[in-house]
Every structure is written in C-alpha cells, then in structure tokens.
C-alpha cells in the first residue's frame, strides 16, 4: 500500500472548560490514501465537522493528537507556519460560505494572492479557468454571491478550494443545502474533478445514498468515536457494527417496492456532556450487555480492510 496522504492519530477535540467541558472528538485515528475519497458519516452532533475543522487546524485539537500531511506533522505548527500549508489542504463548506460583499472574482483572486499564485497578467485567465472548471461562466466573476443560485454558490465554494491547487480537500456536507436535482450536478462535478486532478477527498455527509455512490471507504462516527471503518461496498452490503446496521436500516429507500425502513434504535443519542462509560453506543444498542459498560472497545481489524469497534463483534457476526 502507498504511503497515506493524511494520517490522523488519536485526534481529540474539546470545547469549553471546567464542568462544561465537552469532548466532541475522542481519539480518532485513520488514514487517507492519495486519490482516495473517504466518507465520514454519523448522526448530527457526532463530531464530523469538528473533526474536519480540527484536521485542517481551523480549531485547535487537544494535546496528543497528531495529523500528518504527507508525513509532515501539522499539530505543532503555528498559524503562521500553517499558512503556506493551507495551499495543500482546503475545505468546502456547507452553503452559504461566501462573503456577501465580495465579488466572485475577488474571492478567487484573494486565494491566489494569499498563496502568491498566478501573479500579474496570468491571474485573470486563471480565474476564468477556475470558473469554467466548476461550470460557471467566466463573466460571472463580477457578480456578488446573492446573484448566484444555491448550486452555483456551491460551485464557487469548490472553485475557491481548487484555486489553491490543493492535494487534499475536506468537503463538509457540501450538498445538504441543495435540491436533489442540483445535488446531482455537484456530485458529478466532484467526480469529474477527482478524475481530472487526482484529488484526495474527505467527504462529510449524512446522506448515505450519496456516500455510497461517491466514496471508496467510509468512516462511521458516533458521539465522537469511530464505530466502523470499511470499504464502501463492504459496509453497505454487510454492516458490521450494530450502529452502522441501525443507520442503514433507518434510511428510507426511494422505492415503494422495497421494505419500509424499520426502527432499530429507540431514544435519542446521549449528550456529549456525559457520554456513557465504555462503549458510547451501548445506551441505544439492541445488543448491549453489562460488559459493554466497562471499557472502550478498540477499533479492531476484521475481514477485508474493515475495522470495527464493538466488544460483541465476533459473537454477533
């Protein structure tokens, strides 16, 4: 296997202090290979965005966390040292993430000048090229964000990420604000860009359908912890972790001839302020036993590149 482009080890993020301290992401580790599209799924509040933001140092992770980009450790770097590296890691946000008072072209120019790319006369054509690459007309560069539709705004967001010519992009729910017909346009755009530019992508979503379509591997997060990591096909065909199973079962399939989704899980996810001891999922797990409360299950490799964090994995499968 090639060297991973991104290696995350023991990533932990905390918010607040004192009794209000919340650990939103707890000891997460995984690798992303060059050119891979990795899906990150999980319930709302499970820490997906936080993980993504900590990854590119938009928020500070706790001590002991490690994120390596192409072998280079990012965590110890100052914001000043980080700035040149930002060229290599970019983020696409959920709409709207555009400054309402900045023209589209100015926004792209800002990225270019921040990183000293395409200075002088080369800049105009580069901006036009970027606009075209994401399916916008170059003359739209002089428009303000509110003059674009939702889908176009998202394209602009992608163009901004591409402007820095990154190797790795974190896409945080880039589709959730969009209509179905527009979602498809963006998914197709992402696939095309990946093929053309060889991008590596961390794709955060809670739309399992899209993840299944787009991603090579999937990480399932629950209350800040990784439940399961598996190649997409394997995960969707035979989810190993009880949580993954419940998640897949709950998603309604847009086909009336298929079985209606069944309710696997009762109750709400616990508050991250006081998570259950041991396995964080045990309070809602249909298979939980007393032993699950004792200690945190490690992420253990099973068949075909799959990792599962469940004490009863062997019994249940």
């Amino acid at each position, binding site marked *: 296997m090639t060297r991973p482009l991104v290696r995350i080890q023991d990533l932990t993020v905390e918010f607040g202090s004192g009794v209000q301290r919340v650990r939103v992401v707890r000891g997460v580790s995984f690798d992303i290979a060059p050119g891979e599209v990795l899906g990150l799924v999980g319930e709302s509040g499970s820490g997906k965005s936080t993980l993504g933001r900590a990854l*590119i140092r938009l928020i500070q992770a706790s001590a002991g966390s490690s994120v390596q980009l192409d072998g280079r450790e990012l965590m110890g770097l100052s914001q000043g040292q980080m*700035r040149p590296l930002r*060229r290599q890691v970019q983020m696409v*946000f959920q709409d709207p993430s555009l400054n309402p*008072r900045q023209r589209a072209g100015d926004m792209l120019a800002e990225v270019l000048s921040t990183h000293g790319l395409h200075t002088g006369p080369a800049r105009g054509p580069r901006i036009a090229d970027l606009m075209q690459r994401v399916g916008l007309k170059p003359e739209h560069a002089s428009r303000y964000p509110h003059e674009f539709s939702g889908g176009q705004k998202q394209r602009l*967001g992608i163009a901004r990420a591409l402007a820095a010519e990154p190797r790795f992009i974190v896409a945080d729910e880039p589709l959730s604000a969009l209509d179905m017909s527009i979602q498809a346009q963006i998914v197709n755009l992402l696939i095309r860009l990946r093929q053309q530019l060889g991008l590596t992508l961390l794709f955060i979503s809670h739309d399992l359908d899209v993840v299944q379509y787009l991603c090579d591997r999937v990480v399932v997060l629950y209350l800040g912890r990784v439940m399961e990591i598996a190649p997409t096909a394997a995960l969707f065909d035979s989810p190993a972790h009880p949580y993954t199973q419940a998640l897949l079962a709950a998603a309604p399939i847009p086909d009336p001839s298929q079985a209606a989704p069944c309710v696997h899980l009762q109750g709400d996810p616990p508050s991250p302020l006081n998570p259950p001891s041991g396995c964080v999922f045990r309070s809602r797990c249909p298979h939980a036993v007393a032993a699950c409360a004792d200690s945190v299950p490690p992420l253990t490799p099973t068949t075909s590149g799959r990792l599962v964090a469940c004490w009863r994995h062997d019994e249940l499968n």
Partner: protein
Amino acid sequence: MAEWRVALRTLFARRVVLIALVLLALMLLMAAISQWVLPHDPMTMKISQRLRAPNWSHWSGTDELGRDITSRIFYGARYSLAIGAGTALLAVMLGTVLGLLAGFFKALDAPLMRGVDAMMAFPDILLGIALVSILGASPSNVVLALTIVYTPRVARVVRASTLVIRELPYVEAARAVGVSTPRLLGVHILPNLMSPVLVQLSFIFAYALLAEAGLSFLGVGVGAEIPTWGTMVAASTQHADRAVWTLFFPGMAIMLTALSLQILGDGVRDLLDPRLKGST
C-alpha cells in the same frame, strides 16, 4: 448596482423617510451656503434691536444681542451639524475598532469590555459634563467628550456583531484559505457589520445634537460665542418668559434635525431588516 437602486427605492417609498431626508438635505445646504444667502449677518449685534418678536425682517425674531435668530440658526447649523457628525463619525470609528478587536481577539475581549461596561455605568450627560470640565469648553472638546461617551455604545454593538460574524462560515472559509488576520478583519468582517454601524451613526448623530444642547444648558457646552443650536437654546432660557421665540426656534431646529436623523436611522434599519427582504 441594482441592489443599491432597490435599496434606495425602498427607502424612499416611505414618505416620512423622504421628508426627513429632504429636511436634512435642506439643513446641510443652508449650512453650506448660509454666508451668501442669509438676510442678516449672524454675528452682528444690534443692541437697539434686541429681543424683537418675529417680524418680516426677522422671521424668528432677534436674540438678546439683537442678532437675527433665523440667520443664526442656519449659520449655527454648520457648527451643530459638525459637532453631531464629528461625534458620530469619531465614535463610530473608534467604537468599531474597539468592538472589532474585542469581538475578534478573545484575549482582548474581557479587558476591553469591562472598560466599556465601566464607561457605560455613567449616565451619558454626567460623563459629558465631567469630560467637558476636564477638557475645557470648545467645540472640538465637546466632540471629543461626546465621542468618549458614545464610543462604548458602538463598541458593544460592533462586538456583538463581530462575535456573530466571526463564526459565520465564510469567515471560516477565508481562514481555511489562509487569509491573513488583518485582511480577515478588514475585508471579511468589517464590511459585513457596517449595517448596524450605519444605523448607529445616524442615532449617535441625533444624540450628540441633543447632548450638546444639554451640556450648554448646564453651562458646560461649547462655550464662547459659537452659535450652536445648543448655546442658542441655553442662552435663551434667560429670556424665555419674555421672548419665547429665542427658545422655540433653535429648539425646533434641534428637534427636527434629531427627528429626521432618527427617522432615517429607523428607515435604514427597516431596510436592512431581513424580515422585509421577502417583499422586494
């Protein structure tokens, strides 16, 4: 461009706002051209003509030194408006900088805001009195004092907006791109909090007009022979019983201007109100 046109059209659609704007424009115009068009010299005293009731020659009568009140109101407009505008601009600028810093840099927040709280614990007129007594009575010192009085208010408003805007996705996006902090503040945050600041600008303008009058009344105003509306009203309180016009007309000038400014501020606020956006 179209955005602006729509905005202006919405603003003018309300008749009161239009009237207010016309009034303000007239005031400004008169202040600007007063020295060429006024029927009387605003500074010339004619002791024999003192305290004349309004008549054809003196529309608003004369004051205790026989000066034409109409001329003085228009001539004084430049001082009063300059004091109001100067205060508003300075307070808004200073307050914006302070609020921006406090809102953006967490380490600065507590110290700056405690200071702001302490300043705000003084009623503005008392603070004004104290500051003018320290600085001495002159128009520039009144502006300075009132600036100090109103800066904390702006700082609070700006800080609150900054706290919100700082967390908005597009600011985070800009950070993710690697945009430097000054640029983040200047390009991404500042322009987007200008709308509440604009509203503040017109309100503080109005408050400063009123405060200047109040200070003059209490005997700590701009002083000297500078004919601000405030000093005119203050001086007239001595003759108000016999020559009520000396009190009435400058007072009306203050009131109408302050009213126009507030209507304008309200209009701008309504304009920026997202609840009304749907209808445009």
